Protein backbone atom coordinates (compact mmCIF):
# COMPACT_ATOMS: atom_id res chain seq x y z
CA UNK A 1 0.00 0.00 0.00
CA UNK A 2 2.87 2.39 0.82
CA UNK A 3 4.47 1.62 -2.51
CA UNK A 4 1.19 2.28 -4.29
CA UNK A 5 0.73 5.59 -2.46
CA UNK A 6 4.28 6.61 -3.44
CA UNK A 7 3.58 5.87 -7.14
CA UNK A 8 0.31 7.76 -7.00
CA UNK A 9 1.89 10.79 -5.32
CA UNK A 10 4.70 10.84 -7.87
CA UNK A 11 2.30 10.62 -10.78
CA UNK A 12 -0.30 13.05 -9.48
CA UNK A 13 1.44 15.57 -7.21
CA UNK A 14 -0.92 17.84 -5.35
CA UNK A 15 -3.80 15.35 -5.30
CA UNK A 16 -5.05 14.37 -1.84
CA UNK A 17 -6.02 10.71 -2.07
CA UNK A 18 -7.53 10.58 1.39
CA UNK A 19 -10.02 13.45 1.23
CA UNK A 20 -12.98 11.13 0.77
CA UNK A 21 -13.59 11.92 -2.89
CA UNK A 22 -14.04 8.99 -5.28
CA UNK A 23 -11.11 9.21 -7.71
CA UNK A 24 -13.14 8.32 -10.81
CA UNK A 25 -16.76 9.10 -9.95
CA UNK A 26 -15.83 12.55 -8.60
CA UNK A 27 -13.55 13.30 -11.55
CA UNK A 28 -10.26 13.49 -9.62
CA UNK A 29 -8.56 11.26 -12.20
CA UNK A 30 -9.37 11.31 -15.91
CA UNK A 31 -9.09 8.47 -18.41
CA UNK A 32 -5.65 9.83 -19.44
CA UNK A 33 -4.49 9.63 -15.82
CA UNK A 34 -5.81 6.09 -15.50
CA UNK A 35 -3.92 4.94 -18.57
CA UNK A 36 -0.69 6.45 -17.25
CA UNK A 37 -1.29 4.85 -13.87
CA UNK A 38 -1.97 1.41 -15.35
CA UNK A 39 1.39 1.41 -17.14
CA UNK A 40 3.19 2.25 -13.90
CA UNK A 41 1.26 -0.35 -11.88
CA UNK A 42 1.90 -3.09 -14.45
CA UNK A 43 5.63 -2.40 -14.24
CA UNK A 44 5.91 -1.89 -10.49
CA UNK A 45 3.82 -4.87 -9.37
CA UNK A 46 4.36 -7.18 -12.37
CA UNK A 47 0.65 -7.47 -13.01
CA UNK A 48 -1.34 -7.27 -16.21
CA UNK A 49 -4.32 -4.95 -15.89
CA UNK A 50 -6.72 -5.49 -18.78
CA UNK A 51 -9.56 -3.47 -20.29
CA UNK A 52 -11.99 -5.61 -18.28
CA UNK A 53 -10.44 -4.25 -15.07
CA UNK A 54 -10.95 -0.62 -16.10
CA UNK A 55 -14.17 0.03 -14.20
CA UNK A 56 -14.64 2.87 -11.68
CA UNK A 57 -15.03 0.42 -8.76
CA UNK A 58 -11.42 -0.69 -9.22
CA UNK A 59 -9.96 2.83 -9.30
CA UNK A 60 -12.13 4.95 -7.02
CA UNK A 61 -9.76 4.81 -4.04
CA UNK A 62 -6.28 3.73 -3.06
CA UNK A 63 -7.65 0.69 -1.26
CA UNK A 64 -9.69 -0.33 -4.34
CA UNK A 65 -6.58 -0.07 -6.54
CA UNK A 66 -4.64 -2.05 -3.95
CA UNK A 67 -7.30 -4.76 -3.92
CA UNK A 68 -7.14 -4.97 -7.70
CA UNK A 69 -3.37 -5.41 -7.62
CA UNK A 70 -3.62 -8.12 -4.96
CA UNK A 71 -6.37 -9.85 -6.96
CA UNK A 72 -4.13 -9.88 -10.03
CA UNK A 73 -1.31 -11.46 -8.06
CA UNK A 74 0.83 -8.36 -7.49
Amino acid at each position, binding site marked *: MDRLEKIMTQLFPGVDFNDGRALIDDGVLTSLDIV*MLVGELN*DAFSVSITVDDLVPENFNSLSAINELIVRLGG
Partner: protein
Amino acid sequence: MSINSAAFLLFLTVSVIVYYAVPKKARWLILLAASAFFYLSYSPRAALCLLFTAASVYLGALAQGALRKRERERSETPADKKRWQRRRRALLLLVLLLNFSMLAVFKYLSGWIARISEPLLPRPLILLMPLGISFYIFQALGYLIDCYRGRVAPERNFFKFLLFVSYFPQLVQGPINRFEKLHGQLIQGNDFNADNIRNGVWLMLWGMLKKILIADTLVTPVTDVFDNFNECGGAVILLAVVMYCIQLYCDFSGGVDLVRGASGLFGVEMEVNFCRPYFARSIDEFWRRWHMSLGEWMKNYLFYPLALSKPLNRVAKRLRRGGGRSGRLFVPCVSTFIVFVVIGIWQGPGLANIAYGLWNGALMSGAMIMEPAFAKFREKIGRADGSFAMRVFRTLRTFMLVVIGRYFSRASSLSQSFGMMRRTLFSFTAGAHPFVLGAGSWAVVAVSAGVLFTVSLMQERGVKMRERISRAHPAFQALLLILAMALVFGYFTAGFSTAAYVYENI
Protein backbone atom coordinates in the same frame (compact mmCIF):
# COMPACT_ATOMS: atom_id res chain seq x y z
CA MET B 1 -41.14 13.70 -39.54
CA SER B 2 -38.79 16.35 -38.14
CA ILE B 3 -38.59 16.41 -34.36
CA ASN B 4 -38.91 20.18 -34.52
CA SER B 5 -42.38 20.19 -36.02
CA ALA B 6 -46.00 20.42 -34.99
CA ALA B 7 -46.51 16.87 -36.40
CA PHE B 8 -43.88 15.48 -34.02
CA LEU B 9 -45.47 17.25 -31.04
CA LEU B 10 -48.83 15.72 -31.97
CA PHE B 11 -47.28 12.25 -32.43
CA LEU B 12 -45.49 12.59 -29.09
CA THR B 13 -48.63 13.70 -27.25
CA VAL B 14 -50.64 10.74 -28.59
CA SER B 15 -47.81 8.32 -27.74
CA VAL B 16 -47.57 9.61 -24.16
CA ILE B 17 -51.35 9.36 -23.62
CA VAL B 18 -51.50 5.80 -25.00
CA TYR B 19 -48.36 4.81 -23.03
CA TYR B 20 -49.93 5.67 -19.68
CA ALA B 21 -53.38 4.37 -20.71
CA VAL B 22 -52.29 0.76 -21.29
CA PRO B 23 -51.29 -1.71 -18.52
CA LYS B 24 -47.71 -1.41 -17.27
CA LYS B 25 -46.65 -4.73 -18.80
CA ALA B 26 -47.59 -3.57 -22.30
CA ARG B 27 -46.02 -0.11 -22.12
CA TRP B 28 -42.77 -1.15 -23.75
CA LEU B 29 -44.79 -2.35 -26.75
CA ILE B 30 -46.22 1.16 -27.14
CA LEU B 31 -42.68 2.56 -27.20
CA LEU B 32 -41.71 -0.04 -29.80
CA ALA B 33 -44.77 0.74 -31.95
CA ALA B 34 -44.16 4.50 -31.67
CA SER B 35 -40.50 4.00 -32.62
CA ALA B 36 -41.46 1.87 -35.62
CA PHE B 37 -44.01 4.49 -36.73
CA PHE B 38 -41.48 7.30 -36.30
CA TYR B 39 -38.73 5.57 -38.27
CA LEU B 40 -41.01 4.17 -41.01
CA SER B 41 -42.54 7.62 -41.51
CA TYR B 42 -39.01 8.81 -42.20
CA SER B 43 -38.00 6.04 -44.61
CA PRO B 44 -39.02 2.35 -44.84
CA ARG B 45 -35.79 1.60 -46.73
CA ALA B 46 -33.64 3.15 -44.03
CA ALA B 47 -35.46 0.96 -41.49
CA LEU B 48 -33.87 -2.07 -43.19
CA CYS B 49 -30.42 -0.84 -42.11
CA LEU B 50 -31.64 -0.43 -38.55
CA LEU B 51 -33.13 -3.93 -38.63
CA PHE B 52 -29.87 -5.33 -39.96
CA THR B 53 -27.90 -3.78 -37.10
CA ALA B 54 -30.44 -4.90 -34.50
CA ALA B 55 -30.57 -8.48 -35.85
CA SER B 56 -26.82 -8.93 -36.32
CA VAL B 57 -25.99 -7.53 -32.87
CA TYR B 58 -28.81 -9.47 -31.21
CA LEU B 59 -27.56 -12.76 -32.68
CA GLY B 60 -23.93 -11.83 -32.05
CA ALA B 61 -24.69 -11.13 -28.39
CA LEU B 62 -26.61 -14.38 -27.94
CA ALA B 63 -23.71 -16.27 -29.50
CA GLN B 64 -21.30 -14.49 -27.13
CA GLY B 65 -23.41 -15.66 -24.20
CA ALA B 66 -23.51 -19.25 -25.48
CA LEU B 67 -19.76 -19.36 -26.18
CA ARG B 68 -18.98 -17.86 -22.77
CA LYS B 69 -21.07 -20.60 -21.15
CA ARG B 70 -19.20 -23.31 -23.07
CA GLU B 71 -15.90 -21.63 -22.17
CA ARG B 72 -16.81 -22.02 -18.49
CA GLU B 73 -18.07 -25.59 -18.79
CA ARG B 74 -15.63 -27.15 -21.22
CA SER B 75 -12.30 -25.43 -20.57
CA GLU B 76 -10.10 -27.84 -18.68
CA THR B 77 -6.76 -26.22 -19.47
CA PRO B 78 -5.66 -22.61 -20.10
CA ALA B 79 -5.19 -23.60 -23.76
CA ASP B 80 -8.87 -24.63 -23.98
CA LYS B 81 -9.90 -21.31 -22.45
CA LYS B 82 -7.78 -19.40 -24.94
CA ARG B 83 -9.33 -21.32 -27.83
CA TRP B 84 -12.85 -20.34 -26.72
CA GLN B 85 -11.74 -16.74 -26.21
CA ARG B 86 -10.32 -16.66 -29.74
CA ARG B 87 -13.68 -17.86 -31.08
CA ARG B 88 -15.54 -15.21 -29.16
CA ARG B 89 -13.15 -12.51 -30.38
CA ALA B 90 -13.48 -13.66 -34.00
CA LEU B 91 -17.27 -13.54 -33.71
CA LEU B 92 -17.14 -10.08 -32.16
CA LEU B 93 -14.87 -8.80 -34.94
CA LEU B 94 -17.18 -10.24 -37.60
CA VAL B 95 -20.25 -8.36 -36.28
CA LEU B 96 -18.21 -5.16 -35.78
CA LEU B 97 -16.89 -5.44 -39.31
CA LEU B 98 -20.35 -6.01 -40.83
CA ASN B 99 -21.84 -2.96 -39.13
CA PHE B 100 -18.91 -0.59 -39.58
CA SER B 101 -18.73 -1.64 -43.25
CA MET B 102 -22.39 -0.70 -43.69
CA LEU B 103 -21.68 2.67 -42.05
CA ALA B 104 -18.62 3.20 -44.26
CA VAL B 105 -20.59 2.44 -47.44
CA PHE B 106 -23.16 5.16 -46.65
CA LYS B 107 -20.63 7.62 -45.30
CA TYR B 108 -17.74 7.38 -47.73
CA LEU B 109 -18.74 5.36 -50.78
CA SER B 110 -22.15 6.77 -51.70
CA GLY B 111 -20.72 9.37 -54.14
CA TRP B 112 -18.49 6.77 -55.76
CA ILE B 113 -21.39 4.27 -56.08
CA ALA B 114 -23.55 6.95 -57.75
CA ARG B 115 -20.79 7.71 -60.29
CA ILE B 116 -20.12 4.04 -61.07
CA SER B 117 -23.81 3.16 -61.42
CA GLU B 118 -24.71 6.13 -63.66
CA PRO B 119 -23.69 4.57 -66.99
CA LEU B 120 -24.84 1.08 -65.98
CA LEU B 121 -28.36 1.77 -64.69
CA PRO B 122 -31.31 3.82 -66.01
CA ARG B 123 -30.92 6.04 -62.94
CA PRO B 124 -27.78 6.44 -60.78
CA LEU B 125 -27.91 4.57 -57.49
CA ILE B 126 -28.04 7.25 -54.80
CA LEU B 127 -27.62 6.02 -51.24
CA LEU B 128 -29.18 8.40 -48.76
CA MET B 129 -27.71 8.39 -45.28
CA PRO B 130 -30.19 6.57 -43.01
CA LEU B 131 -31.33 8.75 -40.11
CA GLY B 132 -29.15 8.38 -37.01
CA ILE B 133 -27.18 5.43 -38.44
CA SER B 134 -23.94 6.31 -36.60
CA PHE B 135 -25.73 6.66 -33.30
CA TYR B 136 -27.66 3.41 -33.31
CA ILE B 137 -24.69 1.45 -34.66
CA PHE B 138 -22.42 2.83 -31.91
CA GLN B 139 -25.04 2.14 -29.26
CA ALA B 140 -25.73 -1.42 -30.42
CA LEU B 141 -22.04 -2.26 -30.81
CA GLY B 142 -21.29 -0.86 -27.36
CA TYR B 143 -23.80 -3.39 -26.00
CA LEU B 144 -22.20 -6.18 -28.02
CA ILE B 145 -18.71 -5.37 -26.67
CA ASP B 146 -20.12 -5.28 -23.14
CA CYS B 147 -21.58 -8.77 -23.75
CA TYR B 148 -18.19 -9.91 -25.05
CA ARG B 149 -16.53 -8.55 -21.90
CA GLY B 150 -19.18 -10.22 -19.75
CA ARG B 151 -20.42 -6.93 -18.31
CA VAL B 152 -24.02 -7.38 -19.39
CA ALA B 153 -26.12 -10.49 -20.01
CA PRO B 154 -27.50 -10.78 -23.56
CA GLU B 155 -31.18 -9.84 -23.99
CA ARG B 156 -33.05 -12.93 -25.20
CA ASN B 157 -36.21 -11.22 -26.49
CA PHE B 158 -35.50 -9.75 -29.94
CA PHE B 159 -38.28 -7.17 -29.75
CA LYS B 160 -37.08 -5.88 -26.39
CA PHE B 161 -33.60 -5.55 -27.86
CA LEU B 162 -35.02 -3.89 -30.96
CA LEU B 163 -36.58 -1.25 -28.72
CA PHE B 164 -33.17 -0.53 -27.14
CA VAL B 165 -31.74 0.10 -30.62
CA SER B 166 -34.71 1.88 -32.17
CA TYR B 167 -36.12 3.93 -29.25
CA PHE B 168 -37.27 6.97 -31.24
CA PRO B 169 -36.05 9.92 -29.11
CA GLN B 170 -32.43 8.80 -29.52
CA LEU B 171 -32.64 8.10 -33.27
CA VAL B 172 -32.06 11.57 -34.70
CA GLN B 173 -28.70 12.45 -33.17
CA GLY B 174 -28.21 10.38 -30.04
CA PRO B 175 -27.26 10.52 -27.23
CA ILE B 176 -25.52 7.15 -27.39
CA ASN B 177 -27.07 5.30 -24.46
CA ARG B 178 -25.61 2.41 -22.51
CA PHE B 179 -27.61 -0.79 -22.31
CA GLU B 180 -27.41 -1.21 -18.54
CA LYS B 181 -28.76 2.30 -17.98
CA LEU B 182 -31.45 2.49 -20.66
CA HIS B 183 -32.83 -0.98 -21.29
CA GLY B 184 -34.45 -1.53 -17.89
CA GLN B 185 -36.17 1.86 -18.04
CA LEU B 186 -37.63 1.02 -21.45
CA ILE B 187 -38.91 -2.40 -20.49
CA GLN B 188 -40.21 -1.98 -16.95
CA GLY B 189 -43.22 0.25 -17.77
CA ASN B 190 -42.93 3.51 -15.88
CA ASP B 191 -45.59 5.02 -13.63
CA PHE B 192 -47.12 8.36 -14.49
CA ASN B 193 -45.31 11.12 -12.63
CA ALA B 194 -46.32 14.78 -12.95
CA ASP B 195 -42.74 15.89 -12.21
CA ASN B 196 -41.45 13.89 -15.19
CA ILE B 197 -44.01 15.57 -17.45
CA ARG B 198 -43.21 19.05 -16.13
CA ASN B 199 -39.44 18.55 -16.38
CA GLY B 200 -39.76 16.96 -19.81
CA VAL B 201 -41.85 19.82 -21.19
CA TRP B 202 -39.42 22.45 -19.86
CA LEU B 203 -36.44 20.65 -21.33
CA MET B 204 -38.18 20.27 -24.70
CA LEU B 205 -39.13 23.94 -24.83
CA TRP B 206 -35.61 24.98 -23.83
CA GLY B 207 -34.12 22.80 -26.57
CA MET B 208 -36.58 24.04 -29.19
CA LEU B 209 -35.93 27.67 -28.35
CA LYS B 210 -32.15 27.17 -28.60
CA LYS B 211 -32.64 25.62 -32.01
CA ILE B 212 -35.28 28.02 -33.37
CA LEU B 213 -34.07 31.32 -31.97
CA ILE B 214 -30.31 30.94 -32.15
CA ALA B 215 -29.16 28.02 -34.31
CA ASP B 216 -31.62 28.48 -37.16
CA THR B 217 -31.23 32.27 -37.20
CA LEU B 218 -27.49 31.87 -37.70
CA VAL B 219 -27.57 29.13 -40.36
CA THR B 220 -28.01 31.40 -43.41
CA PRO B 221 -25.40 34.12 -42.63
CA VAL B 222 -22.81 31.54 -41.49
CA THR B 223 -23.36 29.39 -44.61
CA ASP B 224 -23.16 32.50 -46.78
CA VAL B 225 -19.72 33.43 -45.41
CA PHE B 226 -18.36 29.88 -45.70
CA ASP B 227 -19.65 29.63 -49.27
CA ASN B 228 -18.18 33.01 -50.30
CA PHE B 229 -15.12 33.23 -48.08
CA ASN B 230 -12.95 34.48 -50.96
CA GLU B 231 -14.93 37.73 -51.01
CA CYS B 232 -14.99 38.14 -47.21
CA GLY B 233 -12.56 40.02 -45.02
CA GLY B 234 -10.78 38.21 -42.19
CA ALA B 235 -12.86 39.92 -39.50
CA VAL B 236 -16.09 38.73 -41.10
CA ILE B 237 -14.70 35.21 -41.45
CA LEU B 238 -13.69 35.12 -37.79
CA LEU B 239 -17.12 36.42 -36.79
CA ALA B 240 -18.77 33.71 -38.92
CA VAL B 241 -16.67 30.93 -37.37
CA VAL B 242 -17.43 32.18 -33.84
CA MET B 243 -21.13 32.35 -34.78
CA TYR B 244 -20.86 28.82 -36.19
CA CYS B 245 -19.59 27.61 -32.81
CA ILE B 246 -22.68 29.12 -31.18
CA GLN B 247 -24.96 27.77 -33.93
CA LEU B 248 -23.54 24.25 -33.66
CA TYR B 249 -23.85 24.17 -29.89
CA CYS B 250 -27.45 25.43 -29.95
CA ASP B 251 -28.34 23.07 -32.79
CA PHE B 252 -26.82 19.94 -31.29
CA SER B 253 -27.48 20.55 -27.59
CA GLY B 254 -30.92 22.00 -28.41
CA GLY B 255 -31.82 18.84 -30.33
CA VAL B 256 -30.55 16.63 -27.53
CA ASP B 257 -32.47 18.66 -24.91
CA LEU B 258 -35.59 18.21 -27.00
CA VAL B 259 -35.25 14.42 -27.27
CA ARG B 260 -34.17 14.00 -23.65
CA GLY B 261 -37.23 16.01 -22.65
CA ALA B 262 -39.45 13.90 -24.92
CA SER B 263 -38.00 10.73 -23.40
CA GLY B 264 -38.59 12.13 -19.92
CA LEU B 265 -42.33 12.25 -20.65
CA PHE B 266 -42.25 8.43 -20.65
CA GLY B 267 -40.19 8.42 -17.45
CA VAL B 268 -37.09 7.31 -19.39
CA GLU B 269 -33.90 9.23 -18.58
CA MET B 270 -31.32 9.24 -21.37
CA GLU B 271 -27.59 10.05 -21.13
CA VAL B 272 -26.54 13.67 -20.68
CA ASN B 273 -24.68 14.86 -23.77
CA PHE B 274 -23.52 18.39 -22.96
CA CYS B 275 -22.33 20.13 -19.84
CA ARG B 276 -21.84 23.76 -20.89
CA PRO B 277 -18.71 22.99 -22.96
CA TYR B 278 -17.80 26.63 -23.66
CA PHE B 279 -17.13 27.14 -19.95
CA ALA B 280 -14.28 24.59 -20.13
CA ARG B 281 -10.86 25.86 -19.07
CA SER B 282 -8.82 23.34 -21.05
CA ILE B 283 -9.31 21.40 -24.25
CA ASP B 284 -9.31 18.16 -22.24
CA GLU B 285 -12.15 19.51 -20.13
CA PHE B 286 -13.96 20.72 -23.28
CA TRP B 287 -14.03 17.17 -24.61
CA ARG B 288 -15.40 15.92 -21.31
CA ARG B 289 -18.27 18.42 -21.65
CA TRP B 290 -19.00 18.20 -25.41
CA HIS B 291 -20.88 15.24 -26.96
CA MET B 292 -20.26 13.35 -23.73
CA SER B 293 -21.94 10.11 -24.76
CA LEU B 294 -19.66 9.81 -27.81
CA GLY B 295 -16.68 10.61 -25.57
CA GLU B 296 -17.71 7.83 -23.17
CA TRP B 297 -18.14 5.42 -26.07
CA MET B 298 -14.74 6.29 -27.52
CA LYS B 299 -13.12 5.99 -24.08
CA ASN B 300 -14.57 2.57 -23.27
CA TYR B 301 -14.42 0.92 -26.66
CA LEU B 302 -11.47 2.52 -28.45
CA PHE B 303 -9.19 4.53 -26.13
CA TYR B 304 -8.85 1.93 -23.35
CA PRO B 305 -8.34 -1.06 -25.70
CA LEU B 306 -5.72 0.94 -27.63
CA ALA B 307 -3.99 2.21 -24.50
CA LEU B 308 -3.77 -1.30 -23.04
CA SER B 309 -2.83 -2.98 -26.31
CA LYS B 310 0.32 -5.07 -26.34
CA PRO B 311 2.18 -3.28 -29.18
CA LEU B 312 1.83 0.18 -27.61
CA ASN B 313 2.75 -1.08 -24.16
CA ARG B 314 5.82 -2.93 -25.40
CA VAL B 315 7.19 0.36 -26.76
CA ALA B 316 6.13 2.25 -23.62
CA LYS B 317 7.86 -0.30 -21.38
CA ARG B 318 11.11 0.16 -23.27
CA LEU B 319 10.80 3.94 -22.98
CA ARG B 320 10.01 3.72 -19.26
CA ARG B 321 13.22 1.74 -18.68
CA GLY B 322 15.16 4.75 -19.97
CA GLY B 323 13.52 6.93 -17.31
CA GLY B 324 12.07 10.35 -18.00
CA ARG B 325 8.52 11.22 -18.95
CA SER B 326 8.44 9.84 -22.47
CA GLY B 327 7.59 6.31 -21.32
CA ARG B 328 4.78 7.59 -19.16
CA LEU B 329 3.32 9.84 -21.88
CA PHE B 330 3.76 7.59 -24.90
CA VAL B 331 0.62 5.48 -24.46
CA PRO B 332 -1.86 8.27 -23.57
CA CYS B 333 -0.50 10.59 -26.28
CA VAL B 334 -0.56 8.03 -29.11
CA SER B 335 -3.95 6.61 -28.06
CA THR B 336 -5.46 10.10 -27.80
CA PHE B 337 -4.12 11.00 -31.22
CA ILE B 338 -5.63 7.89 -32.81
CA VAL B 339 -9.00 8.44 -31.10
CA PHE B 340 -9.24 12.00 -32.40
CA VAL B 341 -8.26 11.00 -35.92
CA VAL B 342 -11.04 8.39 -35.78
CA ILE B 343 -13.49 11.06 -34.55
CA GLY B 344 -12.37 13.26 -37.47
CA ILE B 345 -12.90 10.44 -39.97
CA TRP B 346 -16.29 9.70 -38.38
CA GLN B 347 -17.35 13.32 -39.00
CA GLY B 348 -17.20 12.66 -42.72
CA PRO B 349 -14.95 12.07 -45.72
CA GLY B 350 -12.31 14.60 -46.69
CA LEU B 351 -8.98 15.80 -45.44
CA ALA B 352 -10.50 18.73 -43.50
CA ASN B 353 -12.14 16.28 -41.12
CA ILE B 354 -8.89 14.40 -40.61
CA ALA B 355 -7.17 17.76 -39.99
CA TYR B 356 -9.85 18.50 -37.38
CA GLY B 357 -8.99 15.24 -35.63
CA LEU B 358 -5.25 15.92 -35.86
CA TRP B 359 -5.74 19.44 -34.46
CA ASN B 360 -7.58 18.15 -31.39
CA GLY B 361 -5.20 15.21 -30.95
CA ALA B 362 -2.23 17.60 -31.12
CA LEU B 363 -3.81 19.94 -28.56
CA MET B 364 -4.55 17.11 -26.13
CA SER B 365 -1.15 15.48 -26.51
CA GLY B 366 0.62 18.85 -26.47
CA ALA B 367 -1.08 19.73 -23.19
CA MET B 368 0.14 16.47 -21.63
CA ILE B 369 3.70 17.00 -22.86
CA MET B 370 3.77 20.64 -21.76
CA GLU B 371 2.28 19.97 -18.32
CA PRO B 372 5.58 20.50 -16.37
CA ALA B 373 5.99 23.93 -18.03
CA PHE B 374 2.37 24.79 -17.18
CA ALA B 375 2.96 23.64 -13.58
CA LYS B 376 6.02 25.90 -13.32
CA PHE B 377 4.00 28.81 -14.66
CA ARG B 378 1.22 28.15 -12.13
CA GLU B 379 3.81 28.05 -9.35
CA LYS B 380 5.34 31.30 -10.56
CA ILE B 381 2.10 33.26 -10.58
CA GLY B 382 1.14 31.79 -7.19
CA ARG B 383 -2.23 32.88 -5.85
CA ALA B 384 -3.13 34.68 -9.06
CA ASP B 385 -3.53 31.22 -10.63
CA GLY B 386 -6.96 30.76 -9.11
CA SER B 387 -8.08 34.33 -9.72
CA PHE B 388 -11.20 35.28 -11.64
CA ALA B 389 -9.06 36.88 -14.38
CA MET B 390 -7.09 33.64 -14.90
CA ARG B 391 -10.29 31.61 -15.00
CA VAL B 392 -11.73 33.92 -17.65
CA PHE B 393 -8.47 33.87 -19.57
CA ARG B 394 -8.38 30.05 -19.60
CA THR B 395 -12.02 29.83 -20.69
CA LEU B 396 -11.47 32.30 -23.56
CA ARG B 397 -8.22 30.61 -24.60
CA THR B 398 -9.99 27.22 -24.74
CA PHE B 399 -12.86 28.73 -26.72
CA MET B 400 -10.42 30.22 -29.25
CA LEU B 401 -8.74 26.81 -29.67
CA VAL B 402 -12.17 25.32 -30.36
CA VAL B 403 -12.88 28.12 -32.86
CA ILE B 404 -9.68 27.29 -34.76
CA GLY B 405 -10.79 23.64 -34.93
CA ARG B 406 -14.09 24.74 -36.49
CA TYR B 407 -12.22 26.22 -39.47
CA PHE B 408 -11.53 22.58 -40.31
CA SER B 409 -14.74 20.86 -39.29
CA ARG B 410 -17.15 23.29 -41.01
CA ALA B 411 -15.20 23.84 -44.23
CA SER B 412 -15.94 21.62 -47.21
CA SER B 413 -12.24 21.11 -48.03
CA LEU B 414 -8.83 21.53 -46.48
CA SER B 415 -7.92 24.25 -48.98
CA GLN B 416 -11.02 26.18 -47.87
CA SER B 417 -9.98 25.82 -44.20
CA PHE B 418 -6.50 27.16 -44.89
CA GLY B 419 -7.86 29.85 -47.22
CA MET B 420 -10.17 31.11 -44.49
CA MET B 421 -7.39 31.00 -41.90
CA ARG B 422 -5.08 32.93 -44.23
CA ARG B 423 -7.65 35.67 -44.71
CA THR B 424 -8.33 35.83 -40.97
CA LEU B 425 -4.64 36.25 -40.20
CA PHE B 426 -3.41 38.39 -43.07
CA SER B 427 -6.46 40.26 -44.29
CA PHE B 428 -8.27 41.21 -41.11
CA THR B 429 -10.71 43.71 -42.63
CA ALA B 430 -14.46 43.98 -43.01
CA GLY B 431 -14.10 43.12 -46.73
CA ALA B 432 -16.67 43.52 -49.48
CA HIS B 433 -18.96 40.70 -48.35
CA PRO B 434 -20.59 41.38 -44.98
CA PHE B 435 -22.08 38.98 -42.42
CA VAL B 436 -25.70 39.40 -43.48
CA LEU B 437 -28.06 39.33 -40.53
CA GLY B 438 -30.90 41.83 -40.20
CA ALA B 439 -31.20 44.11 -37.16
CA GLY B 440 -34.20 42.15 -35.88
CA SER B 441 -32.37 38.83 -36.19
CA TRP B 442 -29.31 40.28 -34.43
CA ALA B 443 -31.59 41.36 -31.59
CA VAL B 444 -33.18 37.87 -31.39
CA VAL B 445 -29.76 36.17 -31.33
CA ALA B 446 -28.30 38.67 -28.83
CA VAL B 447 -31.20 38.44 -26.37
CA SER B 448 -31.49 34.62 -26.68
CA ALA B 449 -27.72 34.10 -26.37
CA GLY B 450 -27.74 36.46 -23.36
CA VAL B 451 -30.45 34.37 -21.68
CA LEU B 452 -28.59 31.15 -22.57
CA PHE B 453 -25.34 32.54 -21.14
CA THR B 454 -27.03 33.69 -17.90
CA VAL B 455 -28.79 30.35 -17.41
CA SER B 456 -25.55 28.46 -18.16
CA LEU B 457 -23.63 30.63 -15.69
CA MET B 458 -26.20 29.91 -13.00
CA GLN B 459 -25.99 26.18 -13.77
CA GLU B 460 -22.21 26.37 -13.55
CA ARG B 461 -22.69 27.75 -10.04
CA GLY B 462 -24.82 24.75 -9.13
CA VAL B 463 -28.31 26.19 -9.64
CA LYS B 464 -30.78 23.54 -10.84
CA MET B 465 -32.92 25.66 -13.13
CA ARG B 466 -35.98 23.42 -13.44
CA GLU B 467 -36.14 22.95 -9.67
CA ARG B 468 -35.76 26.71 -9.20
CA ILE B 469 -38.61 27.37 -11.65
CA SER B 470 -40.85 24.78 -9.98
CA ARG B 471 -40.37 26.61 -6.66
CA ALA B 472 -41.16 30.01 -8.17
CA HIS B 473 -44.53 31.75 -7.82
CA PRO B 474 -47.21 29.91 -9.89
CA ALA B 475 -48.01 33.12 -11.77
CA PHE B 476 -44.34 33.47 -12.81
CA GLN B 477 -44.23 29.79 -13.88
CA ALA B 478 -47.39 30.23 -15.94
CA LEU B 479 -46.06 33.40 -17.55
CA LEU B 480 -42.77 31.75 -18.47
CA LEU B 481 -44.55 28.68 -19.86
CA ILE B 482 -46.96 30.80 -21.93
CA LEU B 483 -44.08 32.88 -23.30
CA ALA B 484 -42.02 29.81 -24.29
CA MET B 485 -45.02 28.03 -25.80
CA ALA B 486 -46.14 31.15 -27.65
CA LEU B 487 -42.69 31.44 -29.22
CA VAL B 488 -42.60 27.78 -30.26
CA PHE B 489 -46.21 27.46 -31.46
CA GLY B 490 -46.14 30.95 -32.99
CA TYR B 491 -43.15 29.80 -34.99
CA PHE B 492 -44.94 26.70 -36.29
CA THR B 493 -48.28 28.37 -36.96
CA ALA B 494 -46.52 31.16 -38.86
CA GLY B 495 -45.49 28.45 -41.32
CA PHE B 496 -41.77 28.39 -40.53
CA SER B 497 -39.89 25.12 -40.66
CA THR B 498 -36.63 24.42 -38.94
CA ALA B 499 -33.35 23.59 -40.63
CA ALA B 500 -32.16 19.98 -40.44
CA TYR B 501 -29.97 19.18 -37.45
CA VAL B 502 -26.25 19.32 -38.26
CA TYR B 503 -25.61 15.88 -36.74
CA GLU B 504 -28.78 14.31 -38.17
CA ASN B 505 -27.05 12.74 -41.15
CA ILE B 506 -23.70 11.91 -39.69
